């Protein structure tokens, strides 16, 4: 099965005695694009890390295809990190090759697949550059190509466009969406940008300030509205209202 679903039930996350999230419950259906939004520092990245098996929950459970997550599941989940986490000593191509190396793909095939993925994100001519020689937007594409190389059904994206200017951000968002639809990926997308969430999602999980609890789950009636449409503006206004005008869900 190419696409897989996620179910999160009563998730609780702690850093020492700091409660980062509690009773977080939501599902992600196969092929769906779900955004997690919430005020900065609310623990949305922690929820994503837990989904990726990179942080152990203090309570509750996360299941992928019914299997409980106890650590990274590289065959099912690929991760794009907030600061991208490209290996600075490896060229773009060899960064994309990492997941292939770890799966034991032979050298020649690795090279070929990595180049094909870089071409897919529009970086065919940058394959031999190291990250320091690439622009922010290009590094972003390398990170996405590397995540696609994982060949996992689920993609977790942690504020992937945070470091980019607004134009690049919107352009990359549109490209990303096209790519992911083509590949039929299930996506969980953490962002602080309401525009990104409104423009890209099937559903939006709104989290409260720390400790993160689910404040509301919004189903977008007609997903991917044009940024000039009334639908988009209504959705954006609703999200703003949820985030900024009301206090924490729970004191």
């Amino acid at each position, binding site marked *: 099965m190419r696409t897989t679903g996620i179910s999160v039930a009563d998730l609780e996350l702690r850093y020492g005695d700091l409660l980062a999230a509690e009773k977080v419950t939501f599902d992600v259906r196969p092929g769906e694009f779900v955004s997690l939004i919430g005020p900065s520092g609310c623990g949305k990245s922690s929820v994503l890390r837990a989904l990726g098996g*990179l942080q152990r929950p203090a309570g509750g459970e996360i299941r992928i295809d019914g299997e409980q997550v106890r650590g990274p599941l590289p065959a099912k989940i690929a991760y794009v990190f907030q600061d991208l986490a490209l290996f600075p000593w490896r060229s773009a191509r060899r960064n994309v090759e990492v997941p292939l190396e*770890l799966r034991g793909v032979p050298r020649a095939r690795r090279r070929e697949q990595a180049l094909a993925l870089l071409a897919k994100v529009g970086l065919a001519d940058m394959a031999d550059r190291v990250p320091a020689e690439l622009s922010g937007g290009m590094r972003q594409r390398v990170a996405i190509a590397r995540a696609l190389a994982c060949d996992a059904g689920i993609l977790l994206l942690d504020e992937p466009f945070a470091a980019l200017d607004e134009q690049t951000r919107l352009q990359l968002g549109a490209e990303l969406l096209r790519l992911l639809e083509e590949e039929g990926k299930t996506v969980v997308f953490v962002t602080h940008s309401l525009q990104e969430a409104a423009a890209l999602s099937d559903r939006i999980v709104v989290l409260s300030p720390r400790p993160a609890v689910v404040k509301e789950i919004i189903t977008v009636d007609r997903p991917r509205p044009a940024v000039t449409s009334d639908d988009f503006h209504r959705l954006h206004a609703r999200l703003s209202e949820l985030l900024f005008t009301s206090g924490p869900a729970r004191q």
Partner: protein
Amino acid sequence: MRRATSYLVVVAGTLLAWWLLTARQAVAPLILPPIGEVGSALSAVDPGTWAAAMAVTTARAFAGFALAALAAVPLGVLLGRRRKLREAYEPLLATTAAVPLVILYPVLAATLGLGTSSKVVLGGLYAFFPIAIATIRAVQQIDPALVAAMQSMGATGARVIRAVVVPSALPGILSGLRIGLGLALVTVIAAEFIAGADGVGYQLAASSQGYRSADLFAWVVLAVALTIVVNTVFTLFATTLERTLRR
């Protein structure tokens, strides 16, 4: 090109100053012998003698350095990765590193003799600490996101070390190794100077105790040449390691 020129100017300037100071007899020949005398002393030293002395000293320094690196790099990686162990052992390492370990030389000489072993061990002890401390620092400063990324793609244990930890920490580890190698060489020469019957340090001691200033300076020139060669070899080694481990 400009760098080479300024470098050559400095070298020529130094030699000129040496020549001026000694030619006008401004300095006693015992303190600084004329450049010509050192030149003739250099050519008077039997090439077999200086080659043998340099070979002995270099072999001891490299042996001590290699033993130190083999122990210090893995230990540094371990302590750099494990916070609990680091908190337990790092203060001990830092304190021991500050002790002038040359005070141990009489003990080493008494147990291992005045030959090669005691000098290798002392050189190794001096090289060990900077390598271990630099490795701990370098490993500790690795970007945790890089490790998490590698793990999320399915790497565990030794693979994480080889694929992320070593390449990330390599520049720091190499600067520790460079300092360690330098200290091993200095220490071996010092140990030979204190006691022994061969090596560059012994030759320095013998010329100095015999008030043969020109000979002493000839050996100083040879020792400097040796350090330049050792440093160049290390740079080649470092470049090769960077090419193979950080690709």
